[in-house]
């Protein structure tokens, strides 16, 4: 952001700090909110999103857990059903493999199994994303895996403003919310950080409505739909395309469940072209769902076949050149436009 004029009232926060701020503000006004997870206490979270909480709220409400994801996520479901508002952290989304029963057979289904008589107000925070050579069990996004299964709301912020507002909204929701934050956006220097994610965040508490996408750049010729870090790739690609006199509109989904199909459809109705950028796997996922939202609604708006820029259907490789080859990036989006316009 060098060269930007910083306004005097600007208060730039990283996503990590804005998540922690939302948690702290809600914990101050709602004694039923508490946080559990691995290394979320004294350490403040591997990704900084619980920093400062244990100092203010103590170890009862900011509980370091044993490495027992099945145990403490299952416990959060029981606490939520009993009237609390637990927040749990699954350190890497990849670790869902050891605890998915607690997530999708318990957390996601108990409201339904109770016929709506129970609330399950809990937030499952989890880190996503690669790009830093952490190998195939610490680099996935798995957005589609979670969004596919009914009973969980799913959000994925691309910047600190949305991160705070979505967290506050999630904490106040009576249904379980999976809060998927991308490591490359967290503002942790050691992970390499997308500067565009660190934005002005109002100090006062506010919510960003779950289930509402946002047009973050208006354009006429093509709609680029993405989420999380992909939004930043899309914005960079839009800058490049603008130099080619192509006007790209960028839609930040912000939520996957509920999916704001109306905003996607309205944008594509205007531009006639659709590129979906998703760091999750290519097949059976978010990118297909976004395209289906358009084509099953009104095929006639499309001037060209939609294109996906997504992660190939392979486990995530370690070697830097291999991983970077697989990841979405602005150049691939520009190339997708070229393919579409040809």
């Amino acid at each position, binding site marked *: 952001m060098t060269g930007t004029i910083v306004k005097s009232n600007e208060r730039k926060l990283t996503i990590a700090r804005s998540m922690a701020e939302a948690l702290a503000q809600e914990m101050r006004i709602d004694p039923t909110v508490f946080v559990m997870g691995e290394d979320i206490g004294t350490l403040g979270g591997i990704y900084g999103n619980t920093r400062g909480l244990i100092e203010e709220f103590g170890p009862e409400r900011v509980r370091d857990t044993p490495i027992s994801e099945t145990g403490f996520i299952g416990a959060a479901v*029981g606490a939520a059903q009993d009237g609390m508002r637990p927040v749990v952290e699954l350190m890497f989304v990849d670790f869902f493999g050891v605890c998915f029963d607690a997530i999708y057979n318990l957390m996601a289904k108990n409201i*339904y199994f109770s016929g709506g008589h129970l609330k399950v107000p809990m937030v499952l925070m989890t880190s996503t994303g690669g790009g830093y050579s952490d190998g195939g069990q610490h680099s996935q996004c798995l957005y589609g895996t979670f969004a596919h299964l009914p009973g969980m709301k799913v959000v994925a912020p691309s910047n600190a403003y949305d991160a705070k507002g979505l967290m506050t909204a999630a904490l106040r929701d009576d249904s379980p919310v999976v809060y998927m934050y991308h490591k490359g956006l967290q503002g942790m220097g050691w992970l390499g950080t997308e500067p565009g994610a660190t934005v002005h965040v109002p100090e006062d508490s506010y919510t960003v409505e779950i289930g509402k996408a946002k047009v973050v750049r208006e354009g006429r010729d093509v709609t680029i739909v993405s989420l999380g870090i992909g939004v930043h790739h899309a914005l960079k690609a839009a800058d490049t395309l603008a130099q080619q006199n192509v006007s790209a509109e960028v839609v930040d989904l912000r939520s996957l469940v509920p999916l704001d199909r109306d905003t996607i459809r309205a944008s594509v109705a205007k531009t006639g072209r659709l590129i979906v950028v998703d760091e999750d796997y290519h097949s059976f996922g978010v990118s297909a769902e976004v395209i289906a939202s358009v084509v099953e609604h009104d095929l006639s708006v499309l001037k060209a076949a939609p294109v996906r820029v997504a992660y190939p259907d392979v486990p995530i490789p370690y070697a830097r050149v291999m991983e970077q080859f697989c990841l979405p990036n602005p150049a691939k989006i520009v190339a997708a436009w070229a393919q579409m316009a040809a």
Partner: protein
Amino acid sequence: MTPSRDELAWMYRNMVLSRRLEETISKIYFEGKTPVFNMANGPIPGEMHLSNGQEPVAVGVCAHLTAEDIVTATHRPHHQAIAKGVDLDAMVAEIFGKATGLSGGRGGHMHLFDPKVNFACSGIIAQGLGPAVGAALSRKLRGLPGVAVAFIGDGAANQGAFHEAMNLAAVWKLPFVCVIEDNSWGISVPKSASTAVARNDVRAAAYGIPGHYVAGNDPLAIYEVAGEAIARARAGAGPTLIECETYRLAGHFMGDAEAYRPKGEKEALFAADPIPKMRARLLAEFGFSEDELVAAEGAAADRVAAAIRFARDSADPRPEDALTAVFA
């Protein structure tokens, strides 16, 4: 710790109520399923896991609980639901998949939820442990009364979730009791072939908490041990692990041919049926009269008949209501 006369009457009444319900369900279950057995047919479709024979564990434990305490149960939940005070009409209607059921037909017999008495169950082995531990944590954090009891089967002690939940409950010293119903079978696999220790109570040592084994499927012995554990939990002294020997008089589910049982086992189990045994003890040792017990048995049969009638007379859910209640 000995149950009072009222508690004894309550325990017997609930054992009989559960047994009458399951006997009735087991007849209705085959409506529409003969001559060709198809699980999808009849007024009660799907799997049906009966708990008959295991009633002593439910009443021996739940005699110490009130509505504010929490129980999580298993895929075999009827006896525990009854002992916890789940509304019988709504429970039976749920088993019939009716609109008046506990969850309007969305759950079925493995997913009985009654928040009014803090009862929930789950179809996945060992899955109730985490939520029970979490409910116990909720009470401890808020300084509210209440003990959480997770009922599981002996097979569940071999699940990873068991270890995680027990450790969590112990390290956080929560008001929690795990009650293992040891019916010695995991569907067709005997406990001796699945479990490295003969008794799961010894596993309590791994968590630094008390462990007890109660032999004999004896409701009074279970009452005594559970009473100590629940009192301990209420006093803030932390969790206890209890394993109770019990017997599954039926198959794993209805339709199970039970060819895996050794010859003579069923006959021996029925000879040791805990309900006639308790009946005899109430008469011989506790001063109950024959008339009293006959009246209790009659009342149980009437209550079951009324619940079945309620369920049969209730409307099916509107199909499109399947699309509601996904979120709160």
